[in-house]
């Protein structure tokens, strides 16, 4: 492996690992908030118990999310010093403002968890709102840097120099809202379906109609409602994201769709593999004219093909598969809640068949796979550029060599963290069952939050 490839693999591994915790870390606070609000409305103690248990899980996940986020932030400077020099000069605002969001999240997360019993209920809700806002803003702001990499703005680039720098114009670069919106909405999808997975798994493990079963059924319904809504919104936004690609990064859209010839009435290719040799897509289902319509809302929209670009500037062609994976899972996650509600309301079924529950268990992992696909698609699809048409990834990489040992060490640490976080979560929730918490909630005056065991 070349040093550049190791550097990319190392950073990619960091992001792929961090993004799981970061995404759930944005999504879960919303679920906790909804549960807290539902409690205020219904006075049903089950929602407090949900909020408590999800908060606990959230705190454990933060134990990995925060340090891996720190790694990601610092590793940017260690592995891509040339890139961060440009970002520091032109696009420092998102990182800078993200720090404040990060502070708000850290301060009020501690207040929500460790001071829950000492503050007024409205203050508890306010703290939670601030945690959710902090988490969401961090995600939005960090994604803004990614947006800038695709649609750089706010400077004039001449002879390798950045002139007339306007950091706010860079901040509000063309794809900021669309890209950040996509990440924010999809994080809520992930948060909701991760909860749905756990709830449906627990429903399978418990007797139908039992106290614990009913508890998880409430959680499942809640998560399907939230997940379904946000999956739909993500898809709407995704459509706009694709149109932005058409407008600003046509070769990325071409590679995502395996389109070689520039044409109007371009077909949409679903599935299959792109063949670099024969310059065609193999084994795909092609929907005639659909890509042109998606890209520009009319069939005679001309979609640029890869042949218009020299081959060394092509993004890797495997992104077609990642793109398909993301879209496919995203669409499925819109359908799942609809199917469940149709089953319950239209067919008046009261029970969830085992097969349906198994299907629901897969939604959380699928949602995580979808965001992984999406991020790898978005970042590999920008190659060979780190800042589109301005700075190449190779130019911005560290000049240090022998990165192999570092790569291995980071993988080992991520494996340790990955295994132990799963172990700790399983251990904790096995020791502190739903029933324990429900009973504790029913006894008035016992602290629910600060009790760790």
């Amino acid at each position: 492996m070349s040093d550049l490839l190791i550097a990319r693999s190392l950073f990619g591994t960091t992001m792929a690992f961090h993004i799981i915790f970061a995404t759930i870390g944005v999504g879960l606070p919303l679920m906790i908030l909804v549960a807290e609000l539902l409690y205020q409305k219904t006075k049903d103690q089950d929602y407090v118990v949900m909020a408590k248990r999800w908060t606990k899980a959230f705190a454990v996940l933060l134990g990995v999310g925060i340090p891996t986020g720190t790694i990601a932030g610092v590793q940017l400077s260690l592995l891509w010093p040339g890139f961060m020099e440009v970002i520091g000069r032109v696009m420092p605002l998102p990182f800078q403002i993200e720090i404040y969001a990060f502070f708000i999240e850290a301060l009020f997360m501690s207040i929500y968890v460790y001071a829950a019993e000492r503050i007024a209920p409205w203050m508890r809700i306010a703290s939670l709102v601030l945690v959710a806002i902090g988490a969401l803003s961090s995600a939005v702001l960090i994604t803004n840097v990614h947006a800038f990499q695709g649609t750089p703005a706010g400077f004039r680039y001449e002879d390798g120099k950045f002139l007339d720098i306007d950091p706010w114009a860079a901040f509000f670069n063309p794809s900021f809202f669309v890209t950040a919106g996509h990440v924010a909405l999809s994080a809520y999808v992930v948060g909701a379906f991760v909860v749905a997975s756990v709830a449906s798994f627990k429903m399978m493990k418990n007797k139908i109609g039992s106290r614990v079963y009913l508890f998880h059924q409430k959680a499942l319904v809640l998560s399907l409602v939230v997940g379904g809504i946000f999956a739909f919104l993500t898809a709407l936004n995704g459509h706009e994201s694709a149109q932005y690609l058409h407008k600003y990064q046509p070769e990325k859209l071409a590679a995502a769709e395996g389109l070689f010839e520039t044409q109007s009435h371009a077909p949409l290719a679903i599935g299959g593999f792109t063949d670099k040799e024969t310059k065609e897509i193999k084994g795909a289902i092609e929907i005639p004219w659909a890509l042109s319509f998606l890209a520009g809302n009319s069939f005679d929209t001309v979609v640029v093909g890869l042949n218009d670009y020299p081959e060394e500037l092509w993004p890797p062609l495997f992104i077609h598969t990642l793109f398909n994976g993301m879209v496919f899972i995203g669409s499925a996650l819109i359908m799942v809640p609809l199917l469940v509600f149709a089953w319950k309301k239209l067919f008046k079924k009261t029970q969830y068949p085992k097969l349906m529950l198994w299907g629901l268990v897969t939604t959380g992992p699928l949602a995580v796979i979808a965001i992984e696909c999406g991020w790898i698609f978005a970042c590999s699809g920008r190659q060979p550029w780190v800042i589109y048409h301005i700075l190449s990834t190779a130019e911005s990489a560290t000049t240090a060599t022998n990165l192999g040992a570092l790569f291995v060490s980071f993988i080992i640490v991520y494996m340790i963290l990955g295994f132990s976080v799963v172990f700790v979560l399983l251990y904790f929730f096995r020791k502190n069952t739903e029933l324990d918490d429900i009973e504790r909630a029913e006894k008035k005056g016992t602290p629910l939050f600060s009790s760790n065991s």
Partner: protein
Amino acid sequence: MADALIAITVLWGFVFIYAVMATMDFGAGFWSMIYINREKTKATNIANRYLSPTWEVTNTFIVALVVAVYSLFPSAANILGTILLIPGSLILLLLALRSAFLVFSNIATEYKKPLTYISGIAGIIIPGLLISVLPITHGHYVDFADGTVNLNLNKLFSSPNEYAFIGFAITSTLFLSSLLLADYSKASNEMEAYRVYLRDGKILGPISLIMALLIMITLKNEVGWIYNKMMEDLPLLLISIGFFLIIGYGLYARNPFQKGERGMPRLAVIAVTIQYLIASYVYGKAHLPYIIYPNVTIESAFTDPNSFRAVFITYIVGFAILFPGFIYFWSLFMNDKRYLRQKGN
């Protein structure tokens, strides 16, 4: 010039705040490990009571620091990023283990001991590596050759100066944190824990001072330029040492407000903060105008003026918004008797 000076002052401020908070944080983690088998003293509980709500906030400062470097001095960040690849990665790896296992140890109570050992040991190595950034910026372990820079690790780790810095970082971590925890346990009315930390402070104070002197001696031999410039502010250095006497008074004197109890830990904590503030001011001033000696100065590395102005405004607005949050946080965890004097846990 003025803008670059403001920028480096902001950066220095972040370094100082993070340094103080991190010593308290990593130190508390270490003490929590040391006293884990002496349950009666509650020394471990006190350390955890401090750590649980604060570690995330402390951790945020290191990110703020790194972001400040690349947004204020982007080309310095480029070179620093290149030469700090190995030490920086080590810090990150240890930090990841430390933070994660700190959280895990509070959740998986049955495995508290092994988890606390991992986070405690990882945590006490980190300050030694973090402070190594300072001797690295002195420049003579950095090879500038035909357009590339390289950190000479052999040269770095065979230098007595580097070890003086590492020793100073670790003893200071333990010193500052024992003073803070003495104060914290006194506020929490845990007098046994208080006496334990007071004793630790008495032992570690003189050791830290010796380490500081060792830094000066090795600096004189190895990095004359910074030593000479620091000595220009000798009166300030002497005042800094003078504060050491106040700390001593805070540790040994009878408490005038509380009969039969020795020590005024709050006084010691304030005095030690001022002491380190003065010392780091003298050091920082002597370091100017270089960020990395002799090739990178605050002038040559300074960011675009437009970007600086925008960033500076966000600093003012951001911290104005955050300030009430910090006050509220402080009042809930540092100053609320219901939190400090809780039973059990």
